[in-house]
C-alpha cells in the first residue's frame, strides 16, 4: 500500500521563486486498489508518480510504500518494489537488445549476478509469459526490440514491469501515445495483470471514460493538490459529464481537455 | 572569497616574490635536456663535470622535458624567471624552446645537429646576439662509407621521425649520398616511437642495410629496431655509440657525447668569465679522435658479416659475448 503524507515538491526556477509542483499532498492507497489520477496539465500528476518512484525528491513530507519509508531509497532501489510504465513506448525497453534479453533483464530485480541470463529453461518460461500478451512475440524472441511497433513495445514494457512481481505499479498515460486498437489492447492487459497479481496501481490518464472504467477510485488533481476523490458507490454512479461538473465546481475553472470529452 | 583571505593571499604572494628576488647571490646555470637517453645523459654529465671543475661555486639546475614540447617551453619559462646566468639546451627542441623565450640572457645549445636550419644562429662562424653552442652534425658520409665497407649494400633503408628537424636534414644528406653512389634509397618515417617497429617491418624485405641518424624518437625504440634487424639479418649502422653498448647493433660511429658535453661546458665557463656569445663560433669537433667506433661481434656473427681485423683494431669499444669492452 502507498501512504503519501504532506508531500511538497518544488523546482528552482531562474529568477528566485521556486515553482511548487506538489503542494502538501496526502494520499493513502490501500493494498490492491487501483486508482485513476486525472487532472489538467501541470496539475502535478506525473510529478506525484515520479515522487513515489524516486525520480524526484520531496522538499518535505514523506512517502511510505508497504511500510517502508522511501526517503532513504534512491530511484534504483525503489524500482525493486515499484514497477513503472511511461507514456513513451520507447522508454522502458533497450531497443538495441533482443526481446528475450530484455525479458531476462526484467525477470529479476536487484543486483546482477554472474550467472547466464538466458538458459534454455528460462527461455521457455519467458516465452510462455510473453505468449500471454497474445501478440505472437514468443516467435520473435531473438529479434531486436527496435523492430517492434509502438503498441508491441508498450505491451512488452508492461509485461517487463510486472514480471518480477512488484507490489506497486505506476502507469503514466501509458496508452496515450498508442493508436486506439493498441491502446485498447494494452488497457485490457493492464487490467488483467493488476487482477492477476493483486497489484496496487496508480494510473494517470486523460481519458475520463477509461479513468472511470479501469479503477475503483478516481482522484482528481489540480495545481499540485487533490481536489476530488471519489470511490465506491459514489464513483459507480458517475459518468464523464459528472466528472467534468465536479471539476468545475471544485476549482471554478473548466477542465481544459476537449479531447477527453470526445470519448 | 572573504576580504581577509584575499589580503593574506596577497601578503603571501608578495613575500614569495621578495624571497625569490633576494636570491643567494650565487650564479645559477640552467641545463635542460630534451629526453633521458644514454647520449644526452652523457652530454649532461660532461657539461656538469666541466662546470664543476672550473667553477665549483655555480649552482646547477638540471631539467628534463621527457620528449614533450610543452614541458620544454615550461622549463624555458622557469629559467627565464629564475634569471639564470646561462641557460643550456641539450638537443634541438630544447635549444629552440630556450631561444624562443629567453632574449636577454646567454644561451648555449648543445649537440644540436644543424643550428642554422634550427633557426638558432645565422651561421656557424659566429654566435648570435645571445646564443652559441656545440653542434654534433653527425658524420653521415663517414658512417655510410663504413657501412658500405662492412657489407655490400645496394638498397639502403633509412628510418627517422618526420617531426625532428635534425633528422630531416640528415635524411637529405643520406638521399644525396645514395644518389651519388648509385644505391637505392628507401625511407620510412614515423611520428611516434610505437610506429617504429611496423615502419621498419614495412621496408625490411626491400632493404639490405639500415642507417639510423641521431633521431631521438627512433632511438627510444632502438630495442625494436635491433630485434628486427637481427631477425632479418640486416646490417645496421647507428649514429649513437652510447646506446650501442647495451643494445645490439652491428656498428655505431659517432661522437663521444661525454666529450661533447665537456666542450659545451667549456663554452659555458667562457661566458661566465665574461665573453660574449657573438664572439664564440659554433663548436664542431674536427678531430677524428673525437669519433667513437663501436663494433658488435655477436651481431656480426649472427647476421653473417665478417669484420675486417683493421676495423676491429680501430674500434674504441668492442661488444662480444654481450659485454662491451672499452679499449
Amino acid at each position, binding site marked *: 500500500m502507498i501512504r503519501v503524507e504532506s508531500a511538497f515538491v518544488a523546482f528552482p526556477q531562474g529568477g528566485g521563486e521556486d515553482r511548487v509542483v506538489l503542494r502538501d499532498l496526502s494520499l493513502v492507497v490501500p493494498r490492491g486498489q487501483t486508482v485513476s489520477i486525472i487532472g489538467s496539465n501541470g496539475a502535478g500528476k506525473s510529478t506525484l508518480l515520479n515522487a513515489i518512484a524516486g525520480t524526484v525528491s520531496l522538499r518535505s513530507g514523506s512517502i511510505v510504500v508497504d511500510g517502508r519509508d522511501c526517503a532513504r531509497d534512491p530511484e*534504483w532501489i525503489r524500482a525493486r518494489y515499484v*514497477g513503472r510504465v511511461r507514456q513513451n513506448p520507447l*522508454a522502458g525497453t533497450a531497443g538495441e537488445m533482443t526481446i528475450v534479453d530484455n525479458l531476462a533483464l526484467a525477470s529479476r530485480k536487484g543486483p546482477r549476478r554472474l550467472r547466464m541470463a538466458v538458459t534454455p529453461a528460462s527461455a521457455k518460461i519467458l516465452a510462455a509469459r510473453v505468449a500471454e500478451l497474445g501478440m505472437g512475440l514468443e516467435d520473435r524472441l531473438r529479434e531486436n526490440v527496435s523492430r517492434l511497433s509502438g503498441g508491441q513495445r508498450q505491451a512488452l514494457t508492461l509485461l*517487463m514491469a510486472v514480471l518480477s512481481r512488484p507490489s506497486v505499479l505506476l502507469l503514466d498515460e501509458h496508452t496515450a501515445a498508442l493508436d486506439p486498437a493498441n491502446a485498447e489492447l494494452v488497457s485490457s492487459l493492464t487490467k488483467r495483470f493488476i487482477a492477476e497479481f493483486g497489484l496496487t496501481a496508480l494510473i494517470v490518464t486523460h481519458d475520463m471514460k477509461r479513468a472511470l472504467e479501469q479503477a475503483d477510485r478516481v482522484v482528481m488533481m489540480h495545481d499540485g493538490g487533490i481536489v476530488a476523490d471519489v470511490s465506491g458507490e459514489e464513483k459507480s454512479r458517475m459518468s464523464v459529464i459528472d466528472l467534468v461538473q465536479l471539476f468545475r465546481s471544485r476549482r471554478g475553472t473548466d477542465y481544459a481537455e476537449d479531447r477527453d470529452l470526445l470519448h | 572569497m572573504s576580504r581577509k583571505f584575499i589580503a593574506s593571499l596577497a601578503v603571501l604572494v608578495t613575500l614569495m616574490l621578495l624571497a625569490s628576488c633576494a636570491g643567494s647571490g650565487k650564479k645559477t646555470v640552467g641545463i635542460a635536456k630534451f629526453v633521458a637517453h644514454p647520449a644526452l645523459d652523457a652530454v649532461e654529465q660532461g657539461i656538469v663535470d666541466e662546470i664543476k671543475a672550473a667553477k665549483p661555486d655555480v649552482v646547477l639546475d638540471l631539467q628534463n622535458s621527457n620528449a614533450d614540447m610543452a614541458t620544454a617551453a615550461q622549463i624555458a619559462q622557469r629559467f627565464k624567471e629564475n634569471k639564470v646566468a646561462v641557460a643550456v639546451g641539450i638537443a634541438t627542441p630544447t635549444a629552440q624552446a630556450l631561444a624562443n623565450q629567453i632574449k636577454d640572457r646567454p644561451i648555449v645549445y648543445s649537440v644540436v645537429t644543424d643550428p642554422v636550419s634550427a633557426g638558432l644562429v645565422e651561421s656557424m662562424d659566429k654566435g648570435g646576439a645571445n646564443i652559441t653552442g656545440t653542434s654534433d652534425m653527425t658524420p653521415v658520409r663517414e658512417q655510410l662509407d663504413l657501412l658500405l665497407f662492412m657489407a655490400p649494400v645496394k638498397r639502403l633503408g633509412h628510418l627517422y621521425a618526420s617531426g625532428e628537424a635534425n633528422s630531416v636534414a640528415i635524411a637529405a644528406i643520406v638521399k644525396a649520398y645514395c644518389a651519388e653512389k648509385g644505391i637505392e634509397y628507401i625511407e620510412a618515417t614515423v611520428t611516434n616511437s610505437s610506429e617504429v617497429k611496423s615502419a621498419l617491418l614495412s621496408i625490411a624485405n626491400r632493404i639490405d642495410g639500415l642507417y639510423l641518424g641521431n633521431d631521438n624518437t627512433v632511438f627510444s625504440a632502438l630495442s625494436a629496431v635491433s630485434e628486427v634487424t637481427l631477425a632479418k639479418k640486416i646490417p645496421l649502422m647507428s649514429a649513437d655509440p652510447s646506446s650501442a653498448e647495451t643494445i645490439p647493433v652491428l656498428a655505431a660511429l659517432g661522437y663521444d657525447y661525454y666529450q661533447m658535453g665537456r666542450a659545451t661546458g667549456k663554452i659555458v665557463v667562457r661566458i661566465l668569465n665574461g665573453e660574449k656569445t657573438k664572439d664564440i663560433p659554433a663548436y664542431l669537433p674536427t678531430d677524428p679522435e673525437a669519433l667513437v667506433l663501436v663494433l658488435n661481434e655477436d651481431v656480426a656473427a649472427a647476421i653473417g658479416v665478417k669484420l675486417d681485423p683493421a676495423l676491429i683494431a680501430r674500434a674504441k669499444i668492442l661488444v662480444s659475448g654481450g659485454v662491451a669492452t672499452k679499449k
Partner: protein
Amino acid sequence: MIEGILVEGLIYGILALGVFISFRVLDFPDLTVEGSFPAGAAAAAAIVTAAARSGATGSVPSWFAAAAPFVAVLAGFVAGCLAGLATSLVHHKLKVPPLLAGIVTMTGFYSINLRILGGKPNLPLIKNNPLLQAARTWLGPSVPQDLALLAAALLAALLVAALLDLFFHTETGIAMGALGDNEAAVIQVGVNPSSLRTLGIVLANGLAGLSGAFAASYQGFADVNFGAGVVAAGLASVMLGELVLRSQFIGAQLFRVLLGSILFRGLMYAARSWGYLAGITPNDLRLLTALLIVGAVAISKYAAKRPRPGPGAGQRISLRGGRP
C-alpha cells in the same frame, strides 16, 4: 608482414575491445585509454625489469623471476583498471562529463606512467623480454618464430574475446549492454547505474592496460608516449569491423572488433608500403585514420537511414550505430 599486420592487429585488437566496451556498449566516450594503455605497458615493463635485476643479484628466488612475465601481464591489467576507476570516480562523484573525465585521467596518468617507468620516458626490454621469448618459442624449435608468435597472439586475443562473450551473456553483461542503450530501463530493474557503469569502465581500461602490457613485450620497450593516437586507432578498428560484418549478436560483434583491428593495421601497412606510388607519405597516416573514421560513420548513418522492415524501426540514428 605477419607480425606487422596480424600480430599487431591482435595485440591492439584487445585495446580495441576495450574501446568497443566504452564507446559502443556503455555509450561512454572514454579517452582514458590513452593513459591506461601506456600504464599497462609501463607496469609490465617495470616488473619484468625489476624481477630480472633482482634475479641477477639473487635477492629473489628463481620461481619469482620465472613468474614475472605473468605477474607483469596481470599488473598491466590492474594498472588499466585503476585508471578506469579514476575516470569513473571523477565522472560519477564529481559529475564531470565523460569526455572531460577521460581527459583528466589520461593527463594525470602521463605523470604517473613516468613514475612507473622510473622517471624515464622509455624503458627498453631488449636484454630481458621473457614474454616475447616464450611467445616465439612455445611451439618448439620446429615451428618458425613468427608463426609461433602469431599463434600466441591469436590465442590471447581470442581468449579475451571469448571471455567477454561469456560475460555479456550473464545477467551483469546484459544489464551493462542495456545501460548504454537505455539507462532508465536498467534503473527500472533495480540496478545501480553508477556501479554498473563503473564496472564497465574499469573493465574496458583493464583491457587497454592488458593490451599495453603485451605491446610493451612485442615492441621491446615501454614508452610514456605509447598512448598517442590509440583512441583513434581503436575507433577506426571498431568501425571497420562494423562495416565488414553485420550482426546483432555480441559474440560476432566482439570478433569483428579484432577483425577490424587487423584490417586497420593492414591498411596502414599498405599505405606505408605502396602509398608512395600515389604520393602518400607515412606522414599522412594520421589523416588517413581520420578519414577512415569519418567515412565509416558516414556509411553507417547511410545504412541506418535506409528503410527497414517494421514500423518505427530505423529511425534512431546515433553515434552507437551499426548494431544489426
